[in-house]
């Protein structure tokens, strides 16, 4: 029976989704939570970008006085912390949230309220960290916070405290989300969706959750020890009491290295979805792609001290970590070749997602190669702590993660919002971003090898760094402008009609089988999965395209109730941490109040009646 568009709208109206602010505050719908994550993260990304522009203005001229040194140090610390914890990770989380249940054929995640909780705690952490600006005490010790600079003696202000406690809050959010997605992927797959039939985005996200679960506890402990040093006078990292600053570095990087794989694997997953769809052939070497991802994650726990080659650990540790780092290049290379193999012999469709996905590969190759150059300690001793490293990680984190996640945004925008982003503006965004990005970061390779160290608020004329710094500053503004184009595209699209089809790209995975945007329950009937690229299989079986899926009534489908207890609990946690910062002024009362609210929220959450 063919339903007319009018009929479809009538069905939708009679079972309209709740609207209004309260519905967003109490939502436990993974799709809404995904949108909350994505929009919040995008705002933080813009903040981090403005911080970067200020850094670039300061560095555009030698001996510049645009920023005082302490301001510069706060801005570069916040830029790094923001981009890693408040931008890339939560944008990835936005996609985990929206797409994982859809890709595995589920109605929601395993723990919808825990999901909401992790978003509110993330927001709390981001607000907490940035509130430090209001105190004039933004973190200023670098995103890596090396001891013993972070000790009370050398960092007496609130800056390090904000960083330390803010990261703890964010850690809770990450851990909560990781438990949730791990269980969701393991337990809520539709019948027939074996692990080796899962879409690549879900696979890479799955591995990311495992990394989160194993890496975050380590930084949690490191931050706890730092907290005890600063608040209770212990000497874990303070040499005068027998402590060792190097211990901080070990602990931090045991977290820090898996963290960079947490940052890149989701983008790997996104690109591994986009390439096949826009090449119109399956991913080359699916099994190798899965196993290389697993191998990278596993090995990623064994290379941490390659961040510490300059510390003089001795030849045996140096050798071990150097060889382990080189080893990791192999599965990474396998992935790049498999992507190439996917495009090779395909019928490449150059839509905006494909542009970004291809640029991802091109940029990541560069970032990966500079990474291999770092793997050798005798060479790395010149490169480390210079702009060469800054070039490397921007190529993998921006050229890699951001380009990949931007590709994901263009790709999944129609599914999430029912509208396709404008192709023309998308291409302008792309070219400006590619050119701006390379102008900004490529010269950094040269500057680093020619003597410019990192984290310096200025440099003298005589060292010759001016020309390339100037070019980089210009590049950074072009890059910033490209995001303005993106914003314009978003706004223009938002104002346009909500008319995207369910499957605009001829996709291979389950999210394209349901309307754009999906109805609250995602699937009217949980689908049965018969193979990899399950939607292509189905289309092939039916001789071509599938009919546009109708919007149906949701009767008989049970959904979890909305709840405000996750928000209350998150507020309690935030209050507790604010109480810690304000303890010198208000005593333990902030901590106690926050703790009580947290317990109150958690208990009510636990005893909330069933839906």
């Amino acid at each position, binding site marked *: 029976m063919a339903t007319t568009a009018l009929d479809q709208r009538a069905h939708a109206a009679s079972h309209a989704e709740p609207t209004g602010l309260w519905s967003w505050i109490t939502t436990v719908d993974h799709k809404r939570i995904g949108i909350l994550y994505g929009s919040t993260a995008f705002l933080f990304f813009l903040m981090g970008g403005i911080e970067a522009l200020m850094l670039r203005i300061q560095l555009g001229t030698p001996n510049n006085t645009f920023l005082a040194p302490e301001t510069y140090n706060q801005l570069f610390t916040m830029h790094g912390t923001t981009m890693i914890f408040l931008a890339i990770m939560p944008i990835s989380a936005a996609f985990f949230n929206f797409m994982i249940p859809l890709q595995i054929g589920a*109605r*929601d995640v*395993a*723990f919808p309220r825990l999901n909401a909780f992790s978003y509110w705690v993330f927001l709390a952490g981001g607000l907490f960290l940035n509130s430090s600006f209001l105190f004039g005490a933004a973190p200023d010790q670098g995103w890596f916070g090396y001891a013993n600079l972070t000790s009370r003696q050398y960092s007496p202000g609130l800056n390090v405290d904000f960083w330390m406690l803010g990261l703890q809050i964010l850690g809770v959010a990450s*851990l909560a989300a*990781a*438990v*949730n997605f*791990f*269980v969701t992927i*393991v*337990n*809520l*797959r539709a019948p027939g*969706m074996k692990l080796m039939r899962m879409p690549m985005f879900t696979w890479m996200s799955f591995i990311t959750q495992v990394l989160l*679960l*194993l*890496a*975050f*506890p*380590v930084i*949690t*402990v*490191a931050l*706890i*020890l730092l907290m*005890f040093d600063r608040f*209770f*006078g*212990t*000497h*874990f990292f303070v040499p005068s*009491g*027998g*402590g*060792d600053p190097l*211990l901080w570095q070990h*602990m931090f990087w*045991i977290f820090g290295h898996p963290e960079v794989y947490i940052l890149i694997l989701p983008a790997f997953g996104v690109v591994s979805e986009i390439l096949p769809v826009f090449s119109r052939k399956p991913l080359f070497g699916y099994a190798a792609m899965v196993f290389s991802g697993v191998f990278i994650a596993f090995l990623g726990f064994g290379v941490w001290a390659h961040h510490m080659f300059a510390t003089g650990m001795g030849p045996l540790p140096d050798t071990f970590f150097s060889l382990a780092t080189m080893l990791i290049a192999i599965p990474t290379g396998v992935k790049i070749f498999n992507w190439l193999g996917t495009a090779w012999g395909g019928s490449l469709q150059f839509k905006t997602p494909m542009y970004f996905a291809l640029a991802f590969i091109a940029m990541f190759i560069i970032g990966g190669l500079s990474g291999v150059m770092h793997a050798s300690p005798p060479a790395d001793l010149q490169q480390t702590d210079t702009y060469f490293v800054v070039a490397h990680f921007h190529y993998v984190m921006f050229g890699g993660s951001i380009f990949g996640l931007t590709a994901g945004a263009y790709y999944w925008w129609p599914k999430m919002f029912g509208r396709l982003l404008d192709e023309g503006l998308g291409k302008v965004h792309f070219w400006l971003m590619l050119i701006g990005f390379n102008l900004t970061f490529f010269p950094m390779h040269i500057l680093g090898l020619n003597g410019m160290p990192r984290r310096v608020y200025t440099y003298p004329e005589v060292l010759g760094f001016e020309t390339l710094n100037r070019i980089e500053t210009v590049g950074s503004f072009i890059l910033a402008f490209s995001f303005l184009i993106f914003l314009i595209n978003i706004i223009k699209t938002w104002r346009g009609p909500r008319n995207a089809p369910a499957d605009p790209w001829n996709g291979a995975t389950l999210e394209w089988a349901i309307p754009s945007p999906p109805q609250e329950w995602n699937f009217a009937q949980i689908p049965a999965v018969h193979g990899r690229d399950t939607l292509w299989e189905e289309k092939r079986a039916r001789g071509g395209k599938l009919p546009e899926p109708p919007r149906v009534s949701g009767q008989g489908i*049970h*959904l*979890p*109730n909305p709840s405000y207890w996750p928000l209350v609990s998150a507020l309690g946690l935030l209050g507790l941490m604010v109480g810690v910062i304000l303890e010198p002024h208000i005593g333990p009362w902030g901590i106690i109040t926050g703790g009580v609210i947290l317990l109150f929220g958690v*208990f009510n*959450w*636990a*005893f*909330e*009646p*069933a*839906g």
Partner: protein
Amino acid sequence: MSDHAAAAHPETATGLDSRKLAIWTFIGSECLFFATLISNYLVHKETWLSGPGPFPHEVWKSPAGQVFEPIIEIPLVTLGTAVLLFSSLFVVLALASAQRGNRRGLLTWLAATLLCGFFFVGMQVYEFTHFVHKGLTLKTNLFGASFFVLTGFHGTHVTIGVIWLLTLWILALRGKLPAEKSLNLEIAALYWHFVDVVWVVIFPVVYLIK
């Protein structure tokens, strides 16, 4: 605990209830947490003897001539360890009762678990105050710092477990923990076993190995 999850997801890909899988996942993560704390303790073990004392197993004499006796009281802590181990047995018995709908058995064994939990926490509180009296605080030396942080966080985990089990005991008292809801206890029991296993590692590392 809410039970809407059971209705919404009748079948799972593994056959395991999602909440059970979740607690195992959380426990996996917590293993890394305690592994880091224990590693920190072991790493700092190397550097202690620069002093000042007191120390767990060794006598230490300060440059001024003050003598610090070893501070660890093995007998009491061994008793606490045994009590904690028994508590794991008791919670297993409580769970068996719950699964069979035996309310009296559930209340009895869960109370026994709780008493053991209270005893252990009490022992730790006593030990901490005893150490402070003998001159060992967080700030005194790296043994103090590492010891208090490691055992303190373990003790916090035990306390959270006690509160959790106490809540369930009160629910059982009110008749709100029937056999169909025994999974709620099973999840708490898994957490409790984990906390116990962590102690089984901490006890020899801190108290027995010199």
